[in-house]
């Protein structure tokens, strides 16, 4: 569904992403982990059209995305969320989600109805009329997800939607992501919270200094000495 072919992105002398290749199949739930500055978010920015790679290609459903602007990539069915959430602060939660829905639906009334369903589905029903900037971080992360889902993606890139959540919120978010996946959306998830990502995903890619150092099923990754050395620090045990 999505294929990265040795993608490289440099900033001046710094290679943020160096020759990363990666395949995502339809129905996948892929995790991307790695220490801060490993190039995870840069990789998302390249895939979603925010950065143009120096070399390599991004192919989505057989179409070369390299050089396409972000809004076209979204229209093709590939939506991303932002690690530092970007709500439309002065608009209501409903309007935020509705703006996403308007990408697929021309009528404002239909988009509003769809937004109401999306708001409900993401557990934001009580906050539909609240101005987005007054939401606490946990709910902002959910809004980020609700808004992205409203664009009806077939592939969704989630950039640390679980960071900063309390245990109850975290459990709800994991549940929500599972449901979204079960409904047929292919997911690529960047995350730091190991317990969550180890349980959630089926396959994990580890980035370090912009390069892919490991790929495999969670149990395999947790034992990989290179990963333990670069990121996990000590062997991560799945109970």
């Amino acid at each position: 569904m999505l294929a990265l072919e040795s993608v490289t992105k440099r900033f001046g002398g710094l290679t943020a992403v160096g020759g990363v290749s990666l395949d995502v199949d339809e129905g996948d739930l892929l995790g991307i982990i790695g220490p801060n500055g490993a190039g995870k978010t840069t990789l998302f920015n390249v895939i979603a059209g925010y950065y143009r790679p120096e070399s390599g290609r991004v192919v989505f459903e057989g179409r070369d995305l390299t050089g396409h602007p972000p809004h076209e990539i979204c229209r093709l069915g590939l939506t991303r969320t932002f690690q530092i959430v970007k709500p439309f602060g002065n608009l209501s939660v409903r309007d935020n989600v509705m703006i996403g829905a308007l990408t697929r639906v021309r009528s404002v009334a239909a988009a509003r109805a769809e937004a109401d369903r999306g708001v409900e589905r993401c557990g934001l029903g009580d906050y539909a009329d609240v101005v987005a900037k007054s939401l606490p971080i946990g709910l902002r992360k959910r809004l980020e997800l609700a808004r992205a889902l409203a664009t009806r993606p077939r592939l969704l890139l989630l950039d640390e939607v679980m960071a900063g959540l309390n245990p109850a919120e975290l459990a709800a978010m994991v549940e929500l992501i599972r449901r979204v996946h079960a409904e047929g959306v292919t997911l690529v998830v960047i995350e730091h919270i190991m317990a969550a990502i180890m349980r959630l995903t089926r396959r994990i890619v580890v980035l370090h200094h912009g390069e892919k150092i490991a790929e495999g099923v969670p149990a395999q990754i947790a034992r990989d000495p290179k990963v333990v050395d670069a990121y996990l620090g000590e062997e991560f045990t799945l109970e």
Partner: protein
Amino acid sequence: MRRHAGAIVLFGLAAVAPLATRDAYFLDTIVLILMWGAISSAWNVAGGYAGQVSLGHAAFFGIGAYSAAVLTVHWSLSPWIGLGLGMALSVVAGLVIGYLSNRLRGPYFVLATIAFAQVLLIAASRWREMTMGSEGIPVPFKQGFWTLGLASKVSWLYLTLAFALVLYLVQVYLEVSRMGYQLAGVREDEDAAQALGIPGRRLKVIAIAMSAALTSAGGTFWAQYVGFVDPFYVFSIDLSVLFALNAIIGGAGTALGPFLGSILITSLEHYLRATLSDIAPGLIGVHLIIYGCLLIVMVRFVPQGLIGALGALFIRRARTARGERLART
């Protein structure tokens, strides 16, 4: 209907004003309140709804004023044709400014818009054969609707009222339509809007071109009303600031805001001009200092503008009323 109550009252009062009085000074004030309110609304399309704050909208105003005046003087064409030409030229100029808005952010964009109006000012004051240079063009008066030679202030009042209504409706469209919501997204966060499939750059350019064309139409009407086009006035930064000021003081990004701002600023200016010049001729221009202070006070204490302040007041009152009801039960 309730959300338009303010507009209905305001435009309704303007419509019935001629029944109450035929005082030329009073009617002139209303015409200008509507005219500046409408042109500030045109500014608001770019500055408020799309978040592209320009301090060069006098450029489009001047293009509109000159297009009609030049066509009438040199070729005896109807100012309505000049209105169309001005709008077309302003769309082109708006596309240029729109392109810049995608290259320059924040203060750099503002500076570019100021420079743009200054360039047109120089061009208009030097291109003597066409514009009569810095002396300005007197607009010939020929009675009739087609030549926009309206002898009575009352006719002008209804013409500007119609123009104001059009601008109000354009803004309402930007509040309830698909394009309006998408534009709000772009204004709030362009990156996020793009991630959600909105062609942010294109929408900004469209909004600025729309804003330019509507401002230009205002320029044409103003020139025909006043009867004289002076390059140092129509392309002045004072005028650009006035358009922004009305909208910001009234409430940028709201349909009624620019008109509320215009009521305050236009009537204040009329009043101050008359009284201050009575006191001493040296006091002319003092109204600008008062504007400045007003702007500082507004931005500091009521950043959402008059609309925001009134809205907050109503909400507070509704809350206290509800509180009292709850206390009684």
